[in-house]
């Protein structure tokens, strides 16, 4: 009797801890739930091969990579690859540009998109709102290569539309592609045009999800439109805003997979413009494919990945402290 009771208690404890009544070994679980694990298999295999293997391969950042000897056979050289990078002028330039553009763009896109999402409800006609939304969303579906063509059509020195307009106004043509300073504005602007429509539409979906009870109650209390936006819409949008920002932050330093095509394509890889267009991603790509310096490329890539991880962990920690429901994990 007593024995039975304690066994039941133990089972209950296990259930609380693991969510399962019976203890099973790994193998038993695999056999019992084999269809599910078979479903997981292709995806997991892919992630292990294409995401986890390269993480181990990252050791080549500490090696003098020799294609004949392969990753494991190459000679260890410690931090030489990193040293080389951090002593060059490029290190500061690409790190600064990466952080500068990403922070600028994250803040601008978020502020403008939230504003747009609120104002899109105030156009006075559903049809107009729908039309604005569809037009705004369009650039999101175009590639940065098309973006390169568009920027070229606008800014080409002799035939471009912008210089054409300047000339007809009696102003001098500007040689956009040979002065880096303009690109400090062109890059964020191009990014905004591609991103704001998409983000606004996400926020609009979130705004329409807010219960109308809140607004009705506020109206009874005599709240103005501005007060309703300030005290109802914006606070209720915050969780979505924070999640999108966190996800983006992870992308900033996400080697190769982030959306950095703009920085590679729009300035057409022009060396004169590097001071304001070169970011870590373009640098890694160039040292890999153009300069063919695997050691340097992998060192910078690892630097990027580690900084990115730290950045996300810190921001997630801060968000969690402030509002645990909005954090990423």
């Amino acid at each position, binding site marked *: 009797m007593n024995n039975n009771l304690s066994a039941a208690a133990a089972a209950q404890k296990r259930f609380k801890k*693991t*969510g*399962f009544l019976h203890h099973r070994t790994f193998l038993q679980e695999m056999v019992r*739930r084999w269809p*599910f*694990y078979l*479903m*997981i298999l292709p*995806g*997991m295999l892919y*992630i292990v*091969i*294409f*995401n*986890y*293997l*390269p993480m181990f*391969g*990252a050791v*080549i*950042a500490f090696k003098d990579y020799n*294609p004949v000897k392969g990753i494991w056979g190459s000679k260890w050289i410690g931090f030489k690859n990193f040293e080389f990078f951090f002593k060059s002028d490029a290190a500061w330039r690409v790190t600064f540009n990466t952080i500068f553009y990403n922070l600028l763009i994250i803040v601008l896109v978020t502020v403008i998109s939230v504003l747009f999402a609120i*104002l*899109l409800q105030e156009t006075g006609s559903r049809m107009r709102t729908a039309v604005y939304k*569809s*037009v*705004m*969303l*369009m650039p999101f*579906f175009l*590639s940065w*290569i*098309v973006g390169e*063509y*568009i920027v070229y*059509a606008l800014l080409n020195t002799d*035939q471009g539309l912008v*210089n*054409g307009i300047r000339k007809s106004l009696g102003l001098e043509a500007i040689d956009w592609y040979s002065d880096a300073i303009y690109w400090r504005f062109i890059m964020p602007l191009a990014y905004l045009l591609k991103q704001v429509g998409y983000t606004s*539409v996400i926020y609009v*979906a979130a705004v329409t*999800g807010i219960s109308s009870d809140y607004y009705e109650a506020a109206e009874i209390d005599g709240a103005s439109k501005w007060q309703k936006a300030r005290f109802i819409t914006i606070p209720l949008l915050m*969780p979505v805003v924070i*999640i*999108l920002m966190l996800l983006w932050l*992870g992308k900033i330093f*996400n*080697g*190769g997979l982030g959306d950095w*095509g703009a920085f590679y*394509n729009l300035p057409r890889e022009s060396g004169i413009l590097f001071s304001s267009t070169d970011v870590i991603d373009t640098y890694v790509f160039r040292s*890999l494919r153009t300069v063919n310096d*695997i050691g340097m*490329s992998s060192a910078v*890539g*690892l630097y990027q*990945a580690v900084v*990115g*991880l730290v950045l996300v*962990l810190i921001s997630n920690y801060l968000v969690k402290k402030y509002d645990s429901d909005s954090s990423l994990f």
Partner: protein
Amino acid sequence: MGQLKMKREGLFSKLAINLMFIVYCAMCLIPVLLVLSISLTNEKSLLTDGYHLIPKEFSLIGYQYVFSGTTSILNAYKITMIVTAVGSFLHLLVTSLMSYAISRNEVRYRNQVSFLVFFTILFNGGLAPYYILITKYLHLKDTLLVLIIVLLVSPVHVLIMRNFFKALPDSIIESARIDGSGEFNTFFRIVLPLSTPVLATIGLFISIAYWNDWFTSALFIENNKLYTLQYLLQALMSNIQYLLSNEQASRAIEKSIGMLPGESARMAACVLSIGPIILMYPVLQRYFVKGLTLGAVKA
């Protein structure tokens, strides 16, 4: 009186809001229209008059040149379509299978698998080891397969789908099981048909990603028979010669207008690459907006 004033103020702010959106929409549309206009303008007029939003001298020579018996753009279309179709299908298959399994509570290691997926969003080994893996160890350089493989699984999509499947009522799956339906049968016959919104949205995202992907080609493709549309466009920007595989036909066109229609042909190729996206746009947009309410990613 006071009410009238308020009404007028409301009207004014409405006007301002609409004006702002019209200006913003114009900023989105005009650049695309400019590219279209250049592609439809006579090459000589482009050189002397510059680019305009409405062609000064209408001409189809750019398009004619792009299609002048040269096969490269048609080939790029073919490659891009194969990659987009096969890639999107496999992406949806692999992603939905995996996401469904880790959405089920009876799968004990679901959280561990989710974590392994999620971690790859946060950290990666960098581009160089990835490049070495694909070229040196898997020998996938210059293959059609690599164009498909690179985008085959996206951790973010797995997590979005998992959240969608989690929200499906448990009773449907339980009752199917009681009726003797196997897990795969339940998945394909019952769960997937209920999941068209998420499948459409993810499918849309991934097909756009495949269609617009230039990066994979830039890394792994050198054989010009495997150029995708985006990569061909990128190559054309620096050298229009990439279009010339049939010299005779292109020479004839060159002779007829006295020059190589470089600018208009480039822009024509660009328009041709956007074409399918614009044609599909109403459908894309509908599912896109629908899919946004599917819930945010949270681990």
